[in-house]
């Protein structure tokens, strides 16, 4: 009996050790650092003070970047929801034997480096890029259209990165819906649209919310698309952390910003778990 009680813990111990050493300990370091000070040479001075947090909230500048990050994350979620539902629904309703190949194609972009995928947009959206080249060549425009280095191009880079997460989450949720429910709705006089609105959509909400949470959290912590595809006013909170930690060697202030971001994300995840249940994400990841 005694040995049975310990067995799960013994089996879990490698995973728990990894989580503890690679996640909990570094986060603790970051929290401790956030109370330290930076010396004029860039060395860290051990201290316990709240100056770094006070600096973050001292005026509107830093919180405004945090708010922009939240706004862009929400935009990214909304776009991924709209763009992701269509292919996920197609996979669900499709009877083709190539369904697994189509799903594999969704994963295909992950085989290419994220940096290369992001930079490739420069060749598509740039002044001398593919789109402008043909718009000018066919006489539709005389001057190139400014499509790069703005919030639109940042969102484009983010969607390219995050859309597969959303599609897979929605698809897994749709796959769990018994198709006889749709048939029942149709036999009771529902139109195709009504059946979708009254049956499919509500039952796929867990997948939509799980995908939204993943997309939101990943957007809030990303820094490559704003750095490569963004203009001067498109920086997000992760870019700010990068600059403070790497650019000015101000690890204490960079840590304080990281803790603020972490706190915000924890509140969102907690709220999600409280009302929708975090297990939806694991279901999707397991492909249930």
């Amino acid at each position, binding site marked *: 009996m005694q040995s049975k009680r310990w067995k799960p813990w013994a089996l879990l111990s490698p995973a728990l050790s990894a989580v503890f050493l690679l996640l909990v300990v570094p986060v603790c370091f970051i929290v401790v650092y956030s109370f330290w000070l930076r010396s004029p*040479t860039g060395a860290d001075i051990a201290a316990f003070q709240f100056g770094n947090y006070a600096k973050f909230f001292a005026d509107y500048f830093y919180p405004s970047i945090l708010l922009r990050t939240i706004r862009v994350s929400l935009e990214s979620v909304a776009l991924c929801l709209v763009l992701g539902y269509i292919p996920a629904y197609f996979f669900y309703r499709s009877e083709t034997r190539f369904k697994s190949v189509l799903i594999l194609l969704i994963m295909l972009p992950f085989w290419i480096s994220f940096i*290369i995928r992001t930079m490739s947009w420069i060749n598509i959206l740039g002044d001398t890029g593919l789109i402008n080249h043909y718009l000018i060549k066919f006489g539709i425009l005389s001057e190139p259209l400014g499509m790069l280095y703005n919030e639109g191009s940042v969102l484009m880079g983010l969607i390219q990165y995050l859309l597969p997460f959303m599609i897979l989450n929605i698809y897994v949720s749709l796959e769990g819906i018994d198709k006889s429910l749709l048939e029942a709705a149709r036999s009771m006089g529902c139109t195709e649209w009504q059946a979708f609105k009254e049956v499919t959509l509500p039952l796929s909400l867990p997948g939509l919310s799980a995908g939204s949470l993943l997309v939101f959290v990943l957007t809030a912590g990303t820094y490559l698309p704003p750095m490569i595809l963004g203009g001067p006013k498109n920086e997000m909170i992760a870019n700010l952390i990068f600059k403070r930690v790497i650019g000015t060697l101000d690890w204490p202030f960079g840590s304080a910003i990281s803790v603020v971001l972490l706190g915000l994300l924890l509140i969102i995840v907690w709220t999600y778990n409280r009302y929708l249940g975090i297990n939806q994400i694991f279901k999707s990841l397991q492909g249930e």
Partner: protein
Amino acid sequence: MKHDLQEKLDRLFEKYMNGEIGRRDFLKFLGIAGAAVGMVGGPFGFCGPAYAAKSIRFDGWGGVVSEAFREHAFQPFTKATGVKVIDGEFGDMDTYLTRVKASFPPGGEFNLAHLSGVFDYARYAGLKFNVVLDESKIPNLKNVMTAMIEPYRAITNGTLSAVPYDYGQTGIAYNTKHIPKDTAEKLGASLLWDKAVKGKLGSWGDWRTNIWYAALHTGQNPNKISDMKAVWSALEQQVPMVKKYWGSGAELMSLLANEEIYATVAWSGRVAALQAQGHPIGFLSPHNCYSWQECIFVTKGTDLDVAQTLLNFMLEPKAAIAVAVGQKYPSSLDPTKVPMPEAVKKLPAFDPTGKLEGYLFADPAFWNSHQVEFAEKWDRIKAGG
């Protein structure tokens, strides 16, 4: 193994972005690299460190610079001493310093690095990562320009923790198809505030370079800025004109080559590379242009005998000139003592006198003491805050 491969792929990608290799070759090399990993990667990758018993680590900018180092300094050095040089790479100075600071003990796993300018030398010395080199064991140091050595001695009380290696300028690159040479020369630093380039202007994201040029635009000496208000105001005016703040040399070259931007601050060597590829890019070096030098820094904890021997190999004229031609920055060797080939003499910023008179370098005392204040203010202005 994994590290080597990553560096090779990074170099390959940089070459592709620089336009040095075509898309087909890029994909072909990528495929070959993938196949190589498939055949010799995995658990065999762990065999690497085992045979590198006696070794020294060098971190540099990669690409043609590292290739020149490998061929002309590292291989002869290994042949002569039996000591292997582990050839690492970094993307920029700040990231590298963060890695050095984060290593345990700090600086412990790093030995030699191709650092930028006196400014960074001072930062490393400030963090106590420096050593005291025995100059008698680096005889080739006598060929190095005195004007380049002295700023380092001033920081570390007459001693050296590095040898100067090359120098260059962050001047202004402009597209000669859209901006006539006469206009550029007439405007000087103020070209970066000319309304004609609005929306087609680029700049480096670096706070120091932007403040330097704002000081020139407002008629001040960048090392003795007295009116910071005027500098911030000039930058506030400039930000709406800027299309992109670039973050790497490859990005700079891509922006200029694709005509995304017509004018930007730019590193002289990168402009020379673009000119060599036939792009219509001019280089403007206005009065008090931002000059800088690079050194080979030795980090605390390094085997000094090995490091000094390697430094001497790197300062051999054959190696130093090959690196200068490869990276397109003039060598620190005094051209009045060591004859330079035409390829070096033609490089932007080359000084045939070996005295570097008229070259203005960043004063580390001024810039380091204002680093956090300036960087944070610059972030706000750049973000339009």
